[in-house]
């Protein structure tokens, strides 16, 4: 088996989730790499959008900004932010990716601040940007993140982007679209989904080299476990070859 880095595994797992003929909104970094890898492996007709307005570009190199010219290189259409976000709101966008400093058991995400005073936070992060919109409006939200018990927390300092809120039907009751919400959380240790009823985070698959104890110990809340837990398939030679030599030859993402 080839050696690989945790980030490489996470990108490969995400790339496998993005099925052909789906639409995904991505940002810069790992999500963009996952979408590019997916296009070059299983999903040649995956449509990639960027929230600033780039639609179905040919991604020759990795964008630095969600609005830079790589996102419109040989694009099918250059559009606007409201147009992209309205496509999400209308229900035409299948996947989005989110990142954040904290995530809770319902898949709610904090990317705004640490502290308890909003006007003078201890640490300010980038904030929502378009994250709250994408998490609210796309059908399925994905997250790739390293897993530790500070990041996977019982209580967020700030709920920036909605997961399943307080679980159960609370997301729909808040007015958010039904049939939307967190879909998969991809960490260095495992792949999680969410329980149908309670909407609590549930481990579906364990990555090579980890066990249940590792996963629970590196999580600040109690995880649920699927009836059948699978083993996450490691990156294939082909995936790694494309990821390392075509998608991110300079190692901007996977080199970190």
């Amino acid at each position, binding site marked *: 088996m080839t050696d690989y880095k945790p980030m490489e595994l996470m990108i490969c797992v995400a790339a496998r989730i993005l099925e052909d003929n789906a639409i995904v909104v991505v940002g810069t970094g790992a999500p963009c790499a996952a979408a590019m890898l997916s296009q070059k492996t299983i999903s040649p007709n995956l449509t990639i959008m960027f929230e600033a307005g780039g639609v179905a570009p040919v991604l020759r190199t990795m964008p630095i900004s969600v609005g*830079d010219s790589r996102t419109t290189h040989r694009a099918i259409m250059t559009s606007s932010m409201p147009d992209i976000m309205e496509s999400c709101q209308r229900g035409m966008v299948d996947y989005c990716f989110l990142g954040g400093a904290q995530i809770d058991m319902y898949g709610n995400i904090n990317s705004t601040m640490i502290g308890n005073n909003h006007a003078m936070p201890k640490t*300010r992060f980038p904030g929502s940007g378009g994250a709250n919109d994408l998490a609210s409006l796309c059908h399925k939200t994905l997250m790739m993140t390293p897993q530790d018990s500070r990041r996977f927390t019982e209580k967020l300092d700030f709920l920036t982007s909605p997961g399943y809120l307080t679980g159960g039907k609370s997301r729909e009751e808040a007015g958010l679209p039904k049939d939307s919400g967190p879909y998969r959380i991809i960490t260095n240790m495992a792949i999680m989904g969410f329980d149908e009823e309670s909407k609590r985070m549930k481990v579906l698959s364990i990555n090579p080299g980890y066990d249940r104890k590792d996963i629970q110990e590196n999580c600040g809340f109690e995880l649920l476990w699927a009836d059948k837990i699978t083993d996450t398939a490691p990156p294939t030679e082909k995936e790694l070859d494309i990821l390392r030599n075509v998608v991110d030859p300079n190692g901007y993402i996977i080199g970190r």
Partner: protein
Amino acid sequence: MTTSDKSSSMELKSGKNELFTDPNPDNARDFFKNKSRSLKSKLSTVENVVKTMVNDGDYISIGGFGANRIPTAIIHEIVRQKKKNLGFAGHTSTHDFQVLVGGECISKCDIAYIVGLEARGLSANARKAVQSGKIQITEWTNAVLSWRLKAAAMGISFMPARSMLGTDTFKYSAAKEIECPFTGQKYAALPALYPDFAAIHVHEADIYGNCRIYGASVSDEDLAKASKRVVITAERIVPTESFRQAPSSTIIPFWCVDAVIEVPFGSYPGNMPFRYYSDEEYLMSWLKKEKNPEEFAEFFKQQIYDTKNFYEYLELNGGIEKITKLRAIENLIDMGEK
């Protein structure tokens, strides 16, 4: 409001932070009624535009997205002329916001994304300004700020949307929950955002302010309509005839625009889609300098206060030779230097 039975028992929430601008469409109509629609040359200078069109305390908004297609010359001049207590629409503003924060121009910010520089990292200065409480903030999202501008562009005081519901982003916003009178569906009502001043950089404009943009327009057609005073900086001034030959490509019409300035390479150090790439070395060195306040102060002075205008700033950072390199990067051309 007629509410459906099933939902009438639910409480409708309001965001608790301050709404910095007046969403009243009749007040905006009073302004727009008297805004000039004349087809006269609006050519001006950066210095004069900032002197006459930007007042201390104004609420301003900058076109483009992140460090892409930004009107750098206007942003620098706002700093040079020491405009203060500005309100700011922070819908993925990165380098533009950091220049204004460097100049301590901003006191209020509708915030969606201003602290980061996307894949490049975070701005120490922007972070400090927010963490210290120096800048009063109200939370929103990128889409929400674009819809707030769209509501204003449409001449209505609010727009319903399904963003922000159920989150702290809503709690620290100035949005209000409402219910659809037809379905009972809960929405976030987003107040219209009418900026006092907007600066937008475009590929081509004529002397009257008709504009073309190539690539993502972000929110700029709505921003141009929603704003009371609008300045366009353009890579090139082109004949009006070129608009009459291809009227489907006009994205901002002249009557939205108050001033026009030709500023070639005007998005530098940012990216201008299809023209030149961002100067990544420059942006990364800016971020690095921000970490050392003294070093940054010296750098900021040298770059902005000590340059008379945008031409001097361009020369200082490599002039035509630098731009030529950035054009090659933009167009994925190997210049044969290896």
